[in-house]
């Protein structure tokens, strides 16, 4: 460590590589995690996020690379010595042990004594709002309760690092949102450094202090949820996180040509050549648009779908076959009396346009 950052990185992985046969699951992955931080590995299935988690946990040996924790090299330490708690996708609760037996499983060698263990188990179960269920078996619990028991079992020995492998994916949507908040609150309260693997972008955006978006065994971008959403570093990240309109365009310094139209780009853009021009549906502006507004584009509303919180419009740009998806508020739609088939002028604000190189 250079000692320059105020918070030293708690966990550092560098140059991790791992393949299964001919398939490279991880290619030269490097990342550091600060103490107390909540980091999400986000990516589609098969991107290597779970493998990276298992490598960090010591459950899967890496082919190359180094893992450091608090400055100490733990690359070759076996799982049991890495001081982490892990919650598996399946929870892996021991079905023949009671809830109390499960939670106490990692406590027996800590010299707490029988009473000490019982007290710690009760305290932990209270903490996640499950008092008094210690005598039950996992099969007698609901999915959400099992999930919390697994969480508490992992936290029982007070590990320095909590690893969560898609912990919410087996639950239905409503329970998932509630438990999401509970996990976040618990993590804040205990201040335990946490890494969670998920393929659910909403989960990652709401929970994480920092997200590492992974694809094909590599980290495409690591940053705060806002950075990831607002300034995706690659076409893949732009597509994977949130909804994104992609137009084929040709950039030339500060402008980009889409069909016959020329759009202004934000100041300082110097890219040239074929690009994907991207904009999020909610960044397309329909109010206060005049013919002279910068980047005003005329189009026709092809479809208008009511989704609940907003309307999703498909716009066909005049004089071309490009279409855009725009999210319009209910107020926009009623104030401007918008309807399918109607012509409309929209603005694509320069500072919301993102460019990614395009292979031709």
């Amino acid at each position, binding site marked *: 460590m250079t000692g320059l950052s105020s918070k030293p990185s708690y966990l550092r992985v560098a140059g991790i590589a791992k393949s299964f046969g001919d398939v490279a699951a991880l290619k030269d992955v490097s990342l550091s995690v600060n103490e107390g931080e909540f980091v999400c590995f986000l990516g589609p299935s098969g991107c290597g996020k779970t493998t990276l988690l298992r490598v960090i946990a010591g459950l899967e040996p890496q082919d190359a690379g180094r893992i450091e924790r608090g400055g100490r090299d733990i690359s070759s330490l076996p799982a049991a*010595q890495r001081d*982490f708690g892990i919650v*598996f996708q399946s929870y*892996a609760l021991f079905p*023949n042990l009671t809830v109390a037996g499960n939670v106490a*499983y*990692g406590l027996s060698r800590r010299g707490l004594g029988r009473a000490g263990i019982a007290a710690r188990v009760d305290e932990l179960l209270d903490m996640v709002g499950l008092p008094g269920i210690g005598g039950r078996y996992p099969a007698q619990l609901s999915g959400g309760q099992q999930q919390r028991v697994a969480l508490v079992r992992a936290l029982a*020995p007070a590990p320095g690092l909590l690893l969560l492998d898609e912990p919410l994916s087996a639950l239905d949507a409503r329970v998932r949102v509630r438990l999401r908040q509970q996990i976040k609150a618990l993590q804040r309260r205990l201040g335990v450094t946490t890494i969670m693997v998920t393929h659910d972008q909403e989960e990652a955006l709401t929970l994480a202090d920092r997200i590492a978006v992974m694809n094909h065994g590599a980290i495409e971008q690591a940053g705060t949820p806002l950075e990831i959403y607002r300034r995706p570093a690659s076409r893949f990240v732009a597509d994977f996180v949130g909804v994104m309109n992609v137009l084929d365009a040709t950039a030339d310094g500060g402008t980009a040509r889409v069909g016959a139209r020329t759009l202004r780009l934000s100041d300082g853009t110097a890219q040239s050549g074929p690009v994907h021009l991207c904009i999020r549906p909610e960044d397309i502006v329909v109010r206060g648009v005049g013919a002279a507004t910068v980047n005003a584009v005329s189009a026709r509303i092809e479809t208008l779908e009511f989704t609940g919180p907003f309307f999703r419009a498909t716009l066909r740009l005049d004089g071309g076959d490009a279409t855009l998806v725009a999210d319009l508020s209910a107020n926009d739609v009623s104030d401007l009396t918008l309807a399918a088939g109607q012509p409309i002028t929209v603005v694509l604000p320069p500072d919301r346009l993102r460019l990614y190189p395009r292979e031709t």
Partner: protein
Amino acid sequence: MSAVAAAPARRSLDREAWIARAAIAALALALIVTVALPLYALLSRGLESKAGAFVGFANYAAYFATPGVGRAVVNSLVIALASTVVTVSVAFVFAYGLTRSRMPYKGVLKAVALAPLLAPSLLPGIALVYLFGKQGLLKSLMFGQEIYGPIGILLGEAFYCFPAAILILTTALSLSDQRLHDAAVSLGASRWRIFRTVTLPGARYGLISACFVVFTLAITDFGVPKVIGGWYDVLAIDVYKRVVGQQDFQKGAVVSALLLLPAVLAFTADSFVRRRQVALLSARSVAFMPRPERMRDGLLFVFCAVVALAILIVLLTAAGASFVKFWPYNLELWLGHYDFDNKDGGGWRAYYNSIEMALWTAACGTAIVFLGAYLSEKSNRFAAGRMAIRLLAVVPMAVPGLVLGLAYIFFFNDPANPLSVLYRTMAILVISTIVHFYTVAHLTAVTALKQMDPEFEAAGASLGVPWYTTFRRVTVPVAMPAILDISIYLFVSAMTTVSAVVFLYAPDTALASIAVLNMDDAGDIAPAAAMAMMIVYTSAAVRLLHWLGTRGLARRSQAWRGR
């Protein structure tokens, strides 16, 4: 965590890893010594002269030049094929009735169908002699044909192989997706068309598998032809005669290698077929529920009842003959046939030996098999050792008992082998029996282990608990039903087996099944039937205890299974 606190943890962890490695190494070594080396000894002996010089395939050439050998080969093939056709066809209809109809008394019928598992293969031979022999009750049904010979062997093998076929076929037929049937019905397919396009393809792999297993059992079985084969020579008898009668070990090795051939072929084909069966039933399939249909259910019930009756008649004949003075002329109740101590063959001592051997086999075998399956499936240390366990565990399936027994003679009776102290002891009987039945037990354990959450070990390790603690506290309790199944399977198999141990027993370690063989040989057929029935009673009692025990266990220690 400070360095001071970390040091002892490190040491215990290293110890944990070394215990795993040592256990894997020990098991792999045990399997090499008890499976690989004896087989090597057998195969190499077939290529040596009596003096021990390498002679290539000269023994094989000499063997095939022996008059009558061609006939034994042909006879074996004919009998095995006929047994396969008869057994698998009858078993298919029976299994169809059990799985695809709403006929009454399914539980009883299935229990009777599996009852032959409790008896040594000598028993059907003895019972058939009583039924169709020179003084047989039903001799008139033979229309002047002799029961001693191919007909007797065929009937005996059908009885002996029936449970194996039933087990495979009921499994295959119960793996059926209701949705496919509903789709076929809704498309207006006739019943015959549904059977042809849905039922048969679904059970295809099971049928193939059943054919291979029955063929192998029938061609390598020794008990039935020994008792009822008469002049009809088959390969399995030939091995026995050459080794026990003529002490010609080279030729014995040659015949053994020949017997190994169909078994290995069947085993290879079967494992190939099994691999293709996996995806038949997806997690979203809906289990097939037959609807009542009077005509079909009635016909199937009649068929199954007749088959079950035939099986019961065989068992009851042996039991009846053992309890009366002189079947069928003097039907006065008499226990004299159970006075084994005044007969050749080992007396009651043989029976107690069998119990002792079966208990050792069940206890040691279950522990070794389950630990081996656990380490090979769940450990991540010493990959080469785990691979060796996995490979050697499935080899015994392809090795007929006679071949195994002979291989053990070659390997353990070699004075140069330090393990030759085991020869002619109880230990070698236990070892050979565990090895003989290793594969089925191993596969049962593997299936149970694969059904467990693969993260149990990782969860235990992440909580800092050594693998053997998680093994003891979680894996073993969760797998307890499978462990009990394995121990019962090993116990009953040890009680009934004849083929491997017939080469390995000593006068003071004679077994019940061998006493049956020897008493039958000496013409004491009624005492042989009595001893065979002792085996049946014991196996049945143990099965019953197991059934009651698992029900009790299920209620107490497996309480977590239910909601």
